[in-house]
């Protein structure tokens, strides 16, 4: 031991480490832990009310994690709201209110209200694109009532409930959206197409819930009570709610529970501003032509085959692959979507079924039915394109792609069209559909 110590006396590394410890120790020993000083923000909601004074126009709600001694992690979530002129202002108020610094490094979701989206979301999101505090790539969602959405999410405490996370995961794989994370949204703001498509998720007041129902604890429901009441309070300028604030007597019927609703609508954001909303049917149609989505379905209404009359046929498209071609023909940009998919008859809704209609032999997709399907897909495509043209919406990011791939031709094309702000209006759109029967 003495030998080791005497060797250490001659070791420069030992002295270096000793110096480091001596320097760092006094500066770190008295500090409280990072976790106690920081509110771990997991979601943010932004809303604007133009009728309020300027210094209180922006409403920022955060859902943060405040660890508590409970086995249910959802009970540790708290929703707090503050008003201010800008995001920094609101965050300062929230920090003063909670006594904790707002740590955004785990903020997975930013919910913007319709008003924020219509006013131009970038002015409110600028803080999040600049701050180094937000170190993750948050997703963006549009909602009519961001604060209520946070409160509804806060209420979710049993595994059977619909959570925002499930909805977002589902949307990512099954619903047409584009540039829904903050970085992509920010990047698209500056690019030529400058169009992104954000999911719209809302909240509605569900049926009254009885205590003990669905495996939820009384604490959980009491949280629902307080949340829904807060959500309905007219001057909810600044309040906080936790899931276990109050208790309610067992068996009592609580007020309406907030439910998260994925309407299937999508907000069309052009230059950071919501200009249109895509309806659920438009989004479903667009799902067919999106290269991100691998499945789809199509309904043929009032179709008659030899075995069944006037029925609605639902066909599922599996193993769908979509590719896009960009080229010029006669100095005019031509965009072609090639859709290849296997199709499978998944449902026939009719008033009367014959025995043939359930036989595997007679429910194959015939050539004539395939043609009907192709016509229906083409019709959907045409409708979508016409809608996009009339509203100047670049559904496929074409202005960006043509600028990148055919810079010179594109510039020439822009100089020939009457309305350069709506370049897709004069473009030619084609579709090529190949369907294979999947049995």
């Amino acid at each position, binding site marked *: 031991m003495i030998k080791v110590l005497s060797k250490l006396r001659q070791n420069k590394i030992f002295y270096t480490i000793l110096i480091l410890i001596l320097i760092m120790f006094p500066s770190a020993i008295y500090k409280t832990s990072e976790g106690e000083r920081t509110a771990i923000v997991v979601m943010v909601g932004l809303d604007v009310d133009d009728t309020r004074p300027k210094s209180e126009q922006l409403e920022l709600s955060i859902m943060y994690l405040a660890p508590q001694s409970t086995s249910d992690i959802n009970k540790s979530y708290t929703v707090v709201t503050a008003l201010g002129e800008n995001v920094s202002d609101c965050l300062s108020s929230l920090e003063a209110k909670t006594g904790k610094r707002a740590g955004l490094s785990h903020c997975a979701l930013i919910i913007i209200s319709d008003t924020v989206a219509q006013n131009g979301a970038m002015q409110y999101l600028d803080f999040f694109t600049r701050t180094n505090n937000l170190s993750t790539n948050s997703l963006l969602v549009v909602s009519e009532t961001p604060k209520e959405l946070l409160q509804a999410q806060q209420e979710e405490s049993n595994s059977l409930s619909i959570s925002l996370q499930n909805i977002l995961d589902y949307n990512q794989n099954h619903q047409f959206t584009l540039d829904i994370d903050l970085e992509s949204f920010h990047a698209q703001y500056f690019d030529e197409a400058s169009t992104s498509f954000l999911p719209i998720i809302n909240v509605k007041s569900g049926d009254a819930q009885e205590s003990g129902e669905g495996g939820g604890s009384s604490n959980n429901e009491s949280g629902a009570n307080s949340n829904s009441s807060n959500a309905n309070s007219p001057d909810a300028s600044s309040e906080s709610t936790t899931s276990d604030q109050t208790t309610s007597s067992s068996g009592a019927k609580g007020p309406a529970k907030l439910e998260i609703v994925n309407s299937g609508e999508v907000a069309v954001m052009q230059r950071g501003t919501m200009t249109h909303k895509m309806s659920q049917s438009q989004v479903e149609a667009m799902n067919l032509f999106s290269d991100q989505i691998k499945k789809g379905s199509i309904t043929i209404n009032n179709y008659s085959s030899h075995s069944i009359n006037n029925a609605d046929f639902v066909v599922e498209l599996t193993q769908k692959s979509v590719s896009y071609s960009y080229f010029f023909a006669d100095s005019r940009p031509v965009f072609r979507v090639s859709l290849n998919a296997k199709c499978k008859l998944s449902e026939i809704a009719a008033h009367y079924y014959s025995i043939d209609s359930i036989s595997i032999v007679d429910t194959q997709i015939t050539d004539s039915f395939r043609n009907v399907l192709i016509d229906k897909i083409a019709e959907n495509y045409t409708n979508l394109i016409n809608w996009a043209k009339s509203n100047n919406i670049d559904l496929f990011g074409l202005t960006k792609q043509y600028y*990148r791939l055919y810079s010179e031709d594109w510039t020439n094309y822009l100089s020939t069209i009457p309305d350069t702000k709506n370049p897709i209006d004069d473009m030619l759109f084609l579709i090529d559909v190949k369907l294979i029967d999947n049995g």
Partner: protein
Amino acid sequence: MNNSISSKQVGTLLFFSIIAIKAVLLPAIIYFYAGTNGYITVIGVLTIDFSLLLCYLAIMKRYPNKTFVNIMEECFGLVISKVLVAMILVYFAIKTILMIMSTYNFLEQVLYDEINWIYYVIVTLAFLYFVVSKSLRVFGRSGQVLFWIVFFAITLVMLITVTNTDFTALLPLFPNGAKPLVDTGFKCAVGFGDYTILIFFLGNTAYTKHSTRHIITFALLGITTIANFYIVFLCNFGYSVVNQNLAIADLTLYIDLAVSVSRLEWIAVFSWLITMVVQMSVYAYCFNQSLIYLLPQKISKHSHLILVIITGLTLIFGNFTLQNIASFVLSQGYSIFACVVQIGIPLLLLLCLLIYRIRKPHSNPPALPTNKQAIEEGQK
């Protein structure tokens, strides 16, 4: 103590030098000035740099035992040699300070909420005091050990991000002509000239028959890695690339896969920290070697203390921020100075080669030992 290092160790240190400063703040700056064709600037300047590496290798191969100072004194005399080393000293002093600032910025923004600047400076200077007093072999061995960790990390980062890339972001080519790209290359000279560290490896490298191949292989690996990084970086972020001031950390945080698979970004973050610390040490070593040559012999044995004092005083009283030091190194004056050092010195070495040939036209270069012979020599 034998101060010479193997060519593989030189190669690994060159690899660190090529990648270290280019994957944090520089990408955003280059893309800001050059637009989305910034990657062409990077590839172009890396190619020029690579051709300058060949100048160093030519003289290393011909005169493996001559140091830079030996060569300059023999060819141009003591005064010019001192002036050149003084320029190199300033060059590496600025690079050391820049690296210290970049590392602080990286730590502050990625790992901590706040770090006390004074504590950071004290700790860093203590580390530099320790490390610059070490021989070149210590750097070589450290580089060799850490190389695989860093190479694996940056390869992993690019592999996981490649799924998210939109390669059309690389187009169109030259939308505003080539001038902005050339101007950017000149303006961002501070981020290049990676082979300048070889000045202090001249005469200290166990040059064998395979050394040229080893060094070139590592250099090409570094060039390919960093060129790919710039491409992947642009294809992920598109126009918002100019907003990503911590490129490598931002890239991993941007990818859902990296974040969802239990924070893969930490691999990139920590490996990058290693890279920055290694590079900071190498720059400080070069700074120290310049001091040793310039200071009188009695004082030169305390060169590492003088280095720490100069750096410490500059950092503490200079009132620097990364922004103002970045604007200084991007200024025209500094760019000219950096180009003179980065391009002028290898060309001077080429001139020295010519001078040696004129002075002794019939002398053959010494036969290079094989790897085995070099190892045996080292053991002796």
